[in-house]
């Protein structure tokens, strides 16, 4: 039903190629300046691509002006018309489409009910709280029943608690109306919680497009690994194939086996492992992928224990241990073995001088 395919190509957005499925909650994740807002504006029609096309349902919309695309946007600062009250704001779209007044009233009522703001018709935007303004912006866009709804960091201006609440509401809303949502954010937690699929962008290019689980557990590049959660990146040399599966990696003086990641990488590479997959064992334990190290720091978080371990190779890794009720002692300076299980160790291409800063 709603298929959006866009290859935009300006210096800001470079060789972008996205295919978004109907009815999905699709997030574009990245830090500021990565081109995610520009991508959104390309889809909405406020920017023209230097080359490439924007297709909606197979129809080329690249040259259609924004007021004729069946796409609506919720702007970052809502852009609610300050001189109109809530009713007139939401009614703006239908009125411009020459819907007759009775029908306008019905639709506006419906939209406001959807966002739980029935009864607020006469208020002016300045009299509303941030969360309420955001809902009016939503209602204003949804009343037109667009094929795609674009959201540009809509929760950025709200405080943490409100944000969590609205995240859940937005997700539920999307399920309810079934419209494709394209959601732009720099907050990885937001993206992970809400999306069906995430596109991670950096410097105008898409680094990876996948479901949240895949993006977190199986990052395709150093940037993605680093952007979502802690990545424990280490520089290593990729070696040959291992007999039992995976590759042999040389980290300092140690030979490790890594089962995940890009099998074609040769030479200089980066390896990564998530903090929750690292095991801490007392010195002297044998087995593959064990590296001696010392505890530098130990923070008790209640639900978990966070350790910072300095390996003998010089690398610093973060470890997260779930609180299983066992009394664990990790005094500073204690000598331990860090076990990096082969099934959790991932090989990624070394991006060069950037050193993973993306």
């Amino acid at each position, binding site marked *: 039903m709603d298929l959006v395919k866009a290859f935009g190509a300006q210096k800001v957005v470079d060789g972008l190629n996205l295919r978004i499925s109907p009815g999905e909650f699709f997030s574009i994740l990245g830090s500021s300046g990565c081109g995610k807002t520009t991508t959104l504006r390309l889809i909405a029609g406020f920017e023209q691509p230097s080359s490439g096309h924007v297709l909606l349902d197979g129809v080329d919309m690249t040259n259609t002006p924004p007021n004729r695309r069946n796409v609506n946007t919720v702007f970052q600062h809502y852009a609610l018309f300050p001189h109109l009250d809530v009713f007139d704001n939401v009614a703006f779209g239908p009125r411009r489409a020459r819907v007759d007044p009775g029908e306008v009233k019905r639709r506006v009522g419906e939209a406001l009910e959807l966002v739980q703001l029935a009864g607020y018709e006469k208020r002016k935007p300045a*009299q509303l709280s941030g969360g309420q303004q955001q809902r009016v912006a939503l209602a204003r866009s949804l009343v037109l029943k667009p094929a795609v709804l674009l959201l540009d960091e809509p929760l950025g201006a709200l405080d943490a608690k409100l944000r969590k609440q609205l995240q859940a509401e937005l997700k539920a809303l999307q399920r309810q109306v079934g419209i494709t949502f394209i959601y732009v954010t720099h907050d990885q937690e937001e993206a992970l919680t809400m999306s069906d699929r995430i596109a991670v962008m950096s410097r105008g290019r898409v680094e990876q497009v996948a479901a949240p689980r895949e993006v977190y557990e199986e990052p395709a590049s150093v940037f993605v690994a680093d952007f979502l959660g802690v990545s424990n990146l280490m520089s290593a040399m990729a070696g040959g194939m291992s007999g039992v599966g995976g590759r042999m990696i040389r980290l300092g003086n140690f030979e490790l086996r890594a089962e995940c990641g890009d099998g074609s990488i040769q030479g200089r590479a980066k390896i990564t492992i998530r903090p929750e997959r690292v095991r801490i064992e007392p010195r002297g334990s044998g087995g593959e992928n064990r590296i001696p190290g010392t505890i530098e720091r130990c923070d008790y978080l209640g639900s978990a224990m966070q350790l910072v371990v300095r390996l003998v190779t010089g690398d610093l890794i973060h470890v997260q241990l779930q609180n299983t009720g066992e009394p664990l002692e990790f005094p500073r300076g204690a000598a331990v073995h860090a076990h990096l299980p082969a099934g959790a160790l991932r090989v990624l291409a070394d991006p060069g001088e950037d050193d993973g800063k993306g």
Partner: protein
Amino acid sequence: MRREATRRSRGSRWLALLTWGYVLLSLWPVVVAIQFSFNAGRSMTSWQGFSLTRWYFGDPVYSVWHDPTLQSALMQSLKLAALDMSIATPLGVLLALGLTRWRSPLASASNFLMLLPMVTPEIVTGVAFSLVILHLFVFLHPGTLAQALGHVTFSLSYVVVIVRGRLVSIGRQYEEAAADLGATPWQSLRYVLLPLLLPAIFASLMIVFAISIDDFVISQWLSCGAGCDTVPIRIYGAARARQTPAVNALAALMVYSTLIALGVAYLLFRFLTRGERASGTSPGAAVTTVGGLEW
């Protein structure tokens, strides 16, 4: 530490004294002049009792209401102000829209051109205008039309500055939202941009009124004689001659009207932008250009 604090407050107390002293001294002559417009006697310098109406409309020969020369000056000033308002404001709004959103080297040159009248000494503009009427635009004679044209020329810059301040503080977001919701460019202008510009347009109207009423040099250089004299020209003529406090009354009327116009502009502006103060947009930039000039 405490010694330093008292030293500082002593220094700033002198400054406070100077400041308030200056403010009072700068307004005191005007207050006195207005006071003398209520003088019961004929002197402009010695107080002879209070009479509310003698020089405004009481005295059958000399009061503003009865003296034909004073009346015609008042009429002329109002006429020019009306012409100025009705031409300079629309022209200026269009110019502000065009200049703010047009990006090209030609646009910057036009912007410079728009600012020039503000920085040119008035005598130069007066000379230029009267010469061009004499030698080039001979179909124009010194008189009301020429005066009006001159007024509009220097009022334009003020309108542009005021409207532009408002445009910049609005930004493009509302028009983009309108387009996003299906409005054509025309609908976007009509239902979103123009309503949002209304405060600045009203403010411009009032300010053009105040500027036009107070203008002296251009009006004098393009005047056709006694019939085209405006209030400031009358005051100029009267300042050294033996006159009655009717002149004070005339000048006082001008002050009242300017202050009322400014008050209306300010209040209207605040009223029309009341929907914006709590939310993200800030009309602040435009408000400071209402009160003074954009520095």
